[in-house]
């Protein structure tokens, strides 16, 4: 679940986290396999994974005995929510401006 106190943009501002997301677009990874792609330690990778999970970008799936990281849509949705919000926002405001201008005459 995405938590309210984590800002999605801050979360993906980190290059390592973006790299993790990139890797996950191609395949699912467990922490060990993920860590092979980085110079940092396994616990450090694990920490990034936790942040991404908390922000809703990835989820952990248990398949057999393995725990895999997979992408999750939640974190991504939040970004398009912003655009949608302002798109509607401006549309409403510009309409209102029209009403006001026309009523003024």
């Amino acid at each position, binding site marked *: 679940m995405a938590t309210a106190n984590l800002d999605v943009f801050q979360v993906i501002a980190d290059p390592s986290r973006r790299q993790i997301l990139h890797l996950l677009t191609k395949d699912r990874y467990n922490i060990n396999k993920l860590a092979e792609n980085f110079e940092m330690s396994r616990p450090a990778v694990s920490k990034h994974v936790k942040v991404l999970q908390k922000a809703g970008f990835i989820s952990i799936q248990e398949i057999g005995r393995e725990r895999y990281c997979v992408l999750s849509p939640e974190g991504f949705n939040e970004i398009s929510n912003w655009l949608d919000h302002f798109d509607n926002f401006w549309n409403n405001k510009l309409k209102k*401006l029209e009403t006001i201008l026309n009523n003024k005459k």
Partner: protein
Amino acid sequence: MKTEIKHRWVYQQSPEEVWKYLTLSELIALWLMPNNFEAIVGHEFEFRTDPIPSLELNGIFYCKVIEIVPFKKLTYSWKGGSRHEITTLDTIVEWTLEEHENGTILNLKHSGFNTENYSILTGMTDGWLKNIQKMLHHLKENNNGNS
């Protein structure tokens, strides 16, 4: 994935008239939001509205006038976040006015929705959708195998 919003609106009034509604604080407030705008380059001002917790916005937009070309163009920065010291939304609002028959074409461009982050995400959308589908497929197969 988009990184900017564009709107084009035609008004029956002249650019001079529409311009007033973009640049006079009390007139802006009539259709947009309460504000302390002044048409001076470099002037810092705020728009105030209700907080939008789901978008982590506290309802105050911190803005600064960037460019003014009377009756033609107005640009300001548009920042927001969950608290003043945390800017998560760092965008630019650009208005351009064109004379059109006896009225005005007003163009709005609201840009800068974290292009840096966006470029990373572009092309990822398809990837993760496919991935999720693959995952679901995989899980289904697994479940079938177990039962």
